[in-house]
């Protein structure tokens, strides 16, 4: 109970304070605005998309961008714009869920490792350091090979690929905070370890983790697209930005727009996420805390 309210409260403060400040700059406004717009697009996709994303019209396949298909049609005659709009749903929800899982598990592991220390810490950190050194795509590919293709396994694969990052970061925060005077004072006052962890350490450690989580959503979108490109993510006809590009080089000839537009959307989204993340870091003034991890 305590954990949730504490985390919620500190997140609340965090949100009010820093997100507002991050929106303050021009870059922050533009990037943040784009992200808000994208999330709204994903939520209201059925009302925004001009066509049914799955409706095939084989006779009308591979038409270049023109009215009424503003971004053209793919090989099945499906509207690319509608698929890009629905693709936002897949990309954002897969990446968002994956990072949320990764963050929760990583924070728990990292906090436990940083708090208990000893053999447990060393064991956790050995594995974490090792996976951290492996490319995320390789970890995700191996994981999908183990449990099979599909959206659920992609989500878990991405979560596992970024687990190390959050564990490392949380542990580093906890270790750093434990050395600070106010914690030492609390310990000297005889507070219980659990109390210290939940009331003092976690609330202070959470802001950098959330910012990194925000940035990781960008990486998650790229990873989801890459898995989709390998044909392992969303299964057809569910549109996903990566899967839309997976028909590979064939499309470069027949309908380059099918590859170019989703790619641009991925790039712009990730850039917006990164810029906004940078603004958050600046607003919170936690750059130094991030660099150590």
């Amino acid at each position, binding site marked *: 109970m305590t954990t949730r309210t504490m985390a919620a409260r500190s997140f609340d403060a965090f949100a009010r304070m820093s997100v507002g400040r991050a929106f303050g700059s021009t870059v922050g406004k533009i990037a943040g605005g784009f992200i808000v717009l994208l999330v709204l697009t994903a939520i209201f996709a059925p009302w925004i998309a001009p066509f049914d994303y799955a409706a095939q019209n084989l006779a009308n396949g591979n038409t270049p961008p023109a009215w009424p298909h503003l971004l053209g049609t793919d090989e099945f005659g499906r509207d690319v714009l509608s698929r890009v709009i629905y693709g936002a749903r897949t990309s954002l929800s897969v990446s968002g869920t994956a990072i949320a899982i990764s963050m929760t598990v990583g924070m728990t592991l990292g906090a436990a490792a940083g708090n208990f220390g000893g053999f447990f810490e060393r064991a956790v950190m050995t594995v974490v350091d*090792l996976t951290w050194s492996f490319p995320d795509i390789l970890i995700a*590919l191996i994981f999908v090979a183990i449990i099979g293709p599909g959206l659920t396994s992609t989500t878990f694969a991405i979560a596992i690929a970024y687990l190390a990052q959050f564990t490392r970061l949380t542990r580093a925060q906890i270790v750093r905070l434990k050395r600070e005077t106010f914690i030492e004072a609390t310990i000297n006052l005889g507070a219980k370890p659990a109390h210290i962890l939940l009331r003092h350490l976690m609330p202070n450690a959470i802001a950098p983790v959330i910012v990194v989580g925000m940035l990781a959503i960008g990486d998650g979108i*790229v990873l989801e697209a890459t898995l989709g490109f390998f044909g392992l993510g969303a299964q057809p006809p569910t549109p996903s930005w990566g899967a839309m590009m997976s028909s590979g080089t064939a499309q470069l000839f027949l309908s380059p727009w099918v590859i170019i537009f989703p790619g641009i959307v991925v790039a712009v989204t990730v850039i917006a996420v990164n810029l906004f993340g940078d603004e958050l870091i600046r607003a919170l003034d936690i750059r130094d805390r991030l660099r150590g991890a």
Partner: protein
Amino acid sequence: MLARYTFQRILMTIPVSIAISIVIFMIVRLLPGDPIDNLIRVGSSPAARAELVAKYGLDRSLIAQYFTWVSQMFRGDFGDAIVLRRPVADLIAQNLPYSLTLGGLAFLFSSVFGMILGTVSAMTRNPFVERFVRGFILLGSTVPGFWLALLLILLFSVQLGWFPVSGARGWDSLVLPVMTIGFGGIALVARVTRVALMDAGREDFVTLLHAKGLSRGTILRRHLLPHAMLPVVTILALRIGWILGGAVTVEFVFGRPGLGSLLIRALGQRDYPVVQGCLLMLALAVMLGTLIGDVAQAAMDPRIREAKS
């Protein structure tokens, strides 16, 4: 001091290696499917199947299989590929040069351009240059590799016809893959160089050098760049796994052989010994990279030696 730290650091890799080998061994056992299915004749008797299973030692306990695997490895024997039917060591030896060439060139490409870009960005006071470099760094670290690869193919192979579309024949087939991997690397190196140079520029001795009347160019070349090299080497050493294994997407798009694509193919064929061998090679490379990175860091900063030893 440094020698002692290095020695201790090498000792530390022993428990890590054991942990790695167990993890890799188990990952492979978790894979669904069975390499025997790919080998055995359809509709053959259970006895024939049992015989094959026994031949590859898959009927023994996991612990026994693990120890056989490890002891063979110490003799340089990675086992024989079940589907590909040749020593795993040969397969790795065949694919590793492709990975090393691609990784090495990408490494070189991104170091050179990254450091130039980072230096320009740290030194120049021109806001346009500054903005361009920041934009490039941002773009390089966000664009999906496979998409960049497709665009490069579209431009350089299809439109201009300068480089081959795929394969690994001749130097010209390396250009586009190196550019694709290197692009992301440039951003990383540029960012690290920029930060390192700006940090170094604030140090007292630089102020002193300025006061002594040395030109900015000389200070940069003689004092700042060597200073900034170390973090760059460190970050690249730490990322050696990314250079070797992360090329898998690029290998896939360009149809190149390499450690990453060998691993992915072996995963598909459920060829346990090959998957194990590849993962082990990658893990070893990663450990070696981390070791080099840590030692380089320690050489640069005595505080690390003290804190860790």
